[in-house]
């Protein structure tokens, strides 16, 4: 167990935050707080971080591997981390203390000053000493079902949860009596890391705020025995399917039948298992999409497979989701049938699963022969299980004294969606309501912002630095100047307690390496990463004239930060160490060929020596960020972001195009949940106007925006009352785009041609302001999904709930009014399902139409007046229904605000096919772009509800504060550099850079002293090296990956085999 950092004196107000839950939400919140200079305890009840997300193989709709994008250092744009490098064992963020296998036992105090009692269960393997050799698991006789693989494979009692877990260590699941007699693992452990006598211990910590990130648990299908789970082998849950489809799963990604391992030819999914039923009356929000993903994965793996999804609605309601669903349905031929199947049988002879369902209710088909029951056989049935509250919700709620809602999830409020019922305790992710990864990440950053508000005096206090490739707390000792010295290389070969030395003859490698040019000394160490090894390494590089180091050990991905830190402590630049992977890439993969492995080790060491000879010191730039933020857009999101940043003590420039604050919120008069949006509006506007830190620019637009994170510059052009303009020049560190969206116009269904046809927002206006008129209404028809002609089709997410909100208000004012809603899919995800049910209970009639058979609206003479006639084909009875409503309300698409494209061009940002800003990654980086310091809030991202806008806006504020509060940010490092004197100005780099970073600069001269040369901003470069590879003049070099460092030893092996003294 890591030494517990107890920052500060316990008698002072605490300067730490506790996060409960080490899944994707908890990790994200911990990183944000740590980056903002606040110490964080990340508590996880299981032995490793990652939560549910670590078990998923792929994410919808990008099909990225979660392991790469989410839980390793693979951000989109490749070199920007998304989650875990700061959680990896050797490079952990100095402001994060990870407490795994730990439970909450007591809680007292008030916001800003809580005392928390914790109980740490022993893992019996010391993670500091475990070298991941796996010998303990090899000898362990106790076999258990693997929890990580959901029982689809086995593990040993002592084992890892997954090959690359964080923390990266083995652990004993639970000690049983036999362990004390057996002790085989203890005997075989080469580093004495196992202590079977370790006892649980209690801890008390002192924190200012708590964030709950406890996630969810999948619905247990044992509660629905009629679906065959546990009775029929080929009925599995969707989480088990995820493991089958994952490359790290029990079948390495090959989907197979459980009963006989055969490849399935027909797979079916049953949706809403444990959702939208009497016991769980809410929608789990994620299942429609994950089932579609799972079916698509099956199609990719087994081309001839038939996939059939039985569903109630297709709820594909986020950015690019509709496109994804249409691709699954139309391009891949995945069948969607609308029905709920309540019994499942097995054909005992074949192991097939038998389903019976009514035909003729497929999408886009109002088929004849309605209601006939069809019987189908499937090889595999996947139950798309819903989202239930986390297992420990009740217990933790009791300890913390927070309320749960009617479904057992955390109780929150629409206008403060991240607050629990106890001040100072916040919630994020699926514990608040069922939600997917992107929303969880937004929640997490938003909850971090709420915690920062409480801890504002501590912002930026626990400083750290990225001036080196690893994270440091304090500055490093002064570096030795080595530029004038010739390379003098020391080589250390790590035996890794036998893991390397049992296969590779390290003495032979040492003998060979000693003769290589510039090599001063070679030494074999039993364990380079242990204390004694590190001390010896320091001696090696500080003695004599040694100025470079090669370490033949394990992977640079796990241990490079450790050795780079050693270099720094020894007064050398951290880029002068080269790791050669003799473990994962040599000894572990060639154990049966010691001669070959030794030969390869020599060759790899030779290359490492060649490479390090050419290595040069690399330094980063320091930049003191400007202590101000720019927020573009003065609607709900912009105001929320501005206030959260300003409340933390930083200046905000808030720019609003119109003459008043509020945006769309000005026209929302009531909410389905009953809260009053106008009260929220008044409160926000008053706080903005009175805030000393906020400079408000009304009737203003940003006309110029340049620079990079920490030092952006912008011109704001304001229209004055007399019609003249004034320009303001500002500097800021971060910018949030909150330019919003708006309800589309159009002329569909006689809109604009007949006064009885109106948009849903106008309906809301009537219901709010003309109740007498509403009370006289006798018949109202509402049409959903009215999209502008020719645009990209997408779900605007909020319209269904908005319509239902108006239906309920109308039914209240005029209970006998006939209300008919013509829809394609009812998208009332999460707890909003309640209002859908309520609308149906009150007699609203929901009639489904399809794209190929839309409703028809016409005017027909009825004596002296013209009747408004709406007709639609009802697909269940196959009859045409005709209505003559008093009013026809249309749910129009929500479109991005008209200036979005212009702003995107000015800031160099991409747009999504729907015209909204396109974030860096749909899932893992939902509010950021490839460029640091630019954030995306509210409906400029995608249509959202009030509570979602608030969360997103707070997330932008929290992330902004991670830059604003830092004394200094470090930029550059391993980036591309242009040698102007060789630049011909051909623009190849500008065309090939995936991030549009290179630019032609007039103040630089190219080849032959001709004016103009390319320049790459080190503050923005991601270091991918594409420009370097493409530059025809070879004028660009990627630092640390220069041509001379790459072009070493690419060809045949230069190590003569006979020279090796292999016995």
């Amino acid at each position, binding site marked *: 167990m890591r030494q517990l950092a107890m920052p500060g004196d316990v008698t002072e107000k605490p300067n730490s935050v506790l996060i409960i839950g080490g899944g994707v939400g908890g990790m994200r919140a911990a990183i944000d707080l740590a980056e903002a200079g606040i110490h964080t305890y990340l508590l996880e009840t299981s032995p490793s971080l990652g939560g549910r997300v670590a078990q998923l193989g792929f994410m919808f709709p990008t099909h990225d591997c979660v392991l790469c994008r989410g839980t390793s250092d693979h951000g989109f744009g490749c070199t920007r981390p998304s989650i875990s490098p700061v959680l990896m064992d050797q490079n952990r963020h100095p402001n994060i203390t990870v407490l795994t296998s730990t439970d909450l036992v007591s809680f007292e105090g008030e916001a800003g000053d809580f005392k928390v009692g914790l109980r740490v269960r022993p893992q019996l393997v010391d993670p500091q000493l475990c070298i*991941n050799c796996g010998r303990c698991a090899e000898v362990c006789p106790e076999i258990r079902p693997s929890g990580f693989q959901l029982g689809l494979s086995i593990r040993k009692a002592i084992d890892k949860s997954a090959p*690359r877990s964080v923390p990266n260590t083995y652990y004993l699941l639970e000690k049983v009596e036999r362990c004390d007699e057996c002790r085989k693992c203890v005997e075989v452990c080469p580093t004495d890391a196992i202590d079977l006598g370790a006892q649980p211990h209690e801890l008390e910590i002192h924190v200012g705020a708590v964030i709950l990130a406890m996630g969810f648990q999948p619905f247990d299908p044992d509660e629905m025995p009629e679906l065959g789970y546990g009775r029929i082998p080929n009925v599995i849950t969707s989480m088990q399917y995820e493991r089958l489809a994952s490359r790290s799963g029990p079948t390495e990604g090959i989907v197979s039948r459980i009963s006989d391992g055969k490849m399935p030819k027909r797979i079916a999914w049953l949706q809403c298992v444990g959702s939208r039923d009497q016991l769980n009356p809410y929608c789990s929000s994620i299942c429609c999409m994950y089932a579609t993903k799972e079916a698509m994965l099956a199609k990719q793996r087994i081309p001839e497979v038939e996939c059939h999804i039985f569903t109630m609605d297709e709820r594909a309601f986020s950015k690019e989701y509709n496109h994804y669903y249409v691709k699954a349905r139309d391009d891949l031929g995945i069948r969607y049938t609308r029905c709920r199947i309540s019994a499942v049988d097995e054909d005992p002879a074949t192991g097939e699963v038998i389903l019976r369902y009514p035909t003729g209710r497929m999408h886009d088909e109002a088929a004849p022969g309605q209601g006939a029951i069809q019987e189908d056989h499937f090889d595999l049935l996947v139950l798309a299980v819903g989202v239930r509250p986390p297992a420990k919700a009740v217990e933790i709620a009791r300890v913390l004294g927070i309320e749960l809602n009617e479904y057992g999830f955390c109780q929150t409020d629409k206008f403060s969606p991240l607050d629990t019922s106890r001040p100072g305790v916040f919630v994020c992710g699926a514990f608040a309501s069922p939600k997917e990864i992107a929303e969880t990440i937004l929640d997490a950053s938003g909850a971090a912002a709420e915690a920062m508000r409480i801890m504002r005096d501590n912002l930026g206090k626990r400083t750290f630095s990225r001036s080196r490739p690893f994270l440091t707390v304090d500055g490093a000792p002064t570096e030795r100047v080595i530029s004038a010295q010739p390379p003098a290389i020391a080589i250390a070969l790590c035996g890794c307690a036998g893991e390397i030395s049992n296969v590779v003859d390290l003495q032979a490698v040492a003998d060979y390496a000693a003769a290589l040019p510039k090599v001063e000394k070679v030494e074999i160490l039993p364990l380079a990463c242990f204390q004694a090894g590190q001390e010896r390494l320091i001696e090696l590089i500080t003695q004599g004239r040694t100025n470079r180091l090669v370490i033949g050990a394990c*992977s640079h991905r796990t241990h490079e930060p450790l050795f780079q830190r050693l270099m720094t402590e020894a007064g050398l630049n951290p880029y002068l160490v080269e790791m050669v992977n003799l473990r994962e890439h040599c000894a572990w993969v060639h154990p049966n060929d010691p001669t070959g492995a030794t030969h390869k080790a020599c060759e790899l060491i030779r290359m490492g020596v060649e490479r390090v000879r050419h290595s040069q010191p690399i330094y980063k730039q320091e930049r003191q960020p400007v202590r101000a933020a720019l927020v573009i857009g003065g609607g709900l999101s912009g105001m929320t972001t501005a206030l959260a940043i300003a409340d933390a003590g930083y200046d905000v420039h808030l720019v609003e195009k119109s003459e008043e604050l509020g945006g769309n919120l000005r026209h929302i008069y009531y909410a389905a949940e009953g809260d009053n949006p106008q009260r929220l509006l008044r409160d926000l506007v008053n706080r903005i106007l009175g805030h000393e830190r906020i400079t408000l620019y009304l009737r203003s637009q940003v006309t110029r925006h340049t620079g990079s994170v920490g030092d952006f510059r912008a011109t704001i052009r304001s229209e004055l009352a007399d019609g003249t303009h004034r320009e303001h020049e500002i500097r800021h560190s971060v910018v949030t785009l909150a330019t919003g969206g708006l309800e589309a116009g159009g002329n569909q269904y006689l809109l604009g041609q007949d006064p009885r046809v109106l948009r849903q927002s106008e309906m809301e206006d009537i219901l709010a302001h003309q109740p007498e008129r509403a009370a006289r209404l006798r018949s109202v028809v509402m049409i959903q999904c009215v999209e502008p002609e020719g645009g990209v089709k997408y779900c605007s997410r909020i319209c269904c709930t908005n319509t239902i909100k108006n239906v309920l208000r109308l039914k209240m004012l005029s209970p006998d009014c006939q209300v008919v809603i013509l829809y394609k899919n009812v998208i009332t995800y999460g707890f909003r399902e309640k209002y859908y049910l309520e609308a149906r209970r009150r007699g609203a009639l929901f009639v489904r139409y399809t794209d190929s058979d839309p409703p028809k609206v016409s005017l027909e003479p009825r004596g002296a007046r013209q009747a408004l006639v709406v007709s639609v084909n009802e697909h269940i009875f196959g009859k045409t229904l005709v209505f003559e409503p008093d009013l026809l309300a249309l749910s129009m698409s929500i479109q991005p605000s008209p200036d979005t494209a212009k702003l995107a061009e000015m800031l160099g940002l991409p747009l999504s096919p729907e015209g909204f800003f396109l974030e860096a990654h749909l899932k893992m980086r939902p509010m950021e772009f490839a460029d640091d310091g630019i954030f995306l809030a509210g409906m400029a991202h995608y249509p959202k509800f009030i509570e979602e806008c608030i969360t997103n806006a707070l997330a932008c504020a929290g992330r902004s504060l991670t830059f604003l509060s830092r004394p200094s940010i470090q930029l550059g490092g391993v980036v591309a550099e242009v040698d102007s004197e060789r630049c011909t100005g051909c623009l190849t780099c500008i065309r090939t850079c995936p991030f549009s970073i290179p630019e032609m600069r007039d103040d630089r001269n190219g080849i032959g002293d001709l004016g103009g040369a390319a320049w790459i901003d080190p503050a923005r470069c991601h270091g991918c090296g594409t420009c370097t590879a*493409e530059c025809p003049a070879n004028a660009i070099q990627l630092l640390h990956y220069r041509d001379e460092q790459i072009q070493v030893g*690419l060809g045949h092996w230069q190590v003569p085999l006979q020279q090796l003294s292999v016995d």
Partner: protein
Amino acid sequence: MADFEPNIVAFCCTHCAYNAADLAGSLRIQYPPAIKIIEMLCSGRVDVLHILRAFEDGADGVMVAG
């Protein structure tokens, strides 16, 4: 040709393919030793000249993985 063991150079993106090779090690998956993995920050850094140089210097096969 039965004894022919090709000498392969693999340029691997540090974030994915190199990581995958590490995972292969953790899982003790076996393959012949004559494969040299060159770590790259991104496979975008691989210049066609690097690939040609590898062949010129005697490599039998080159893999770019990222």
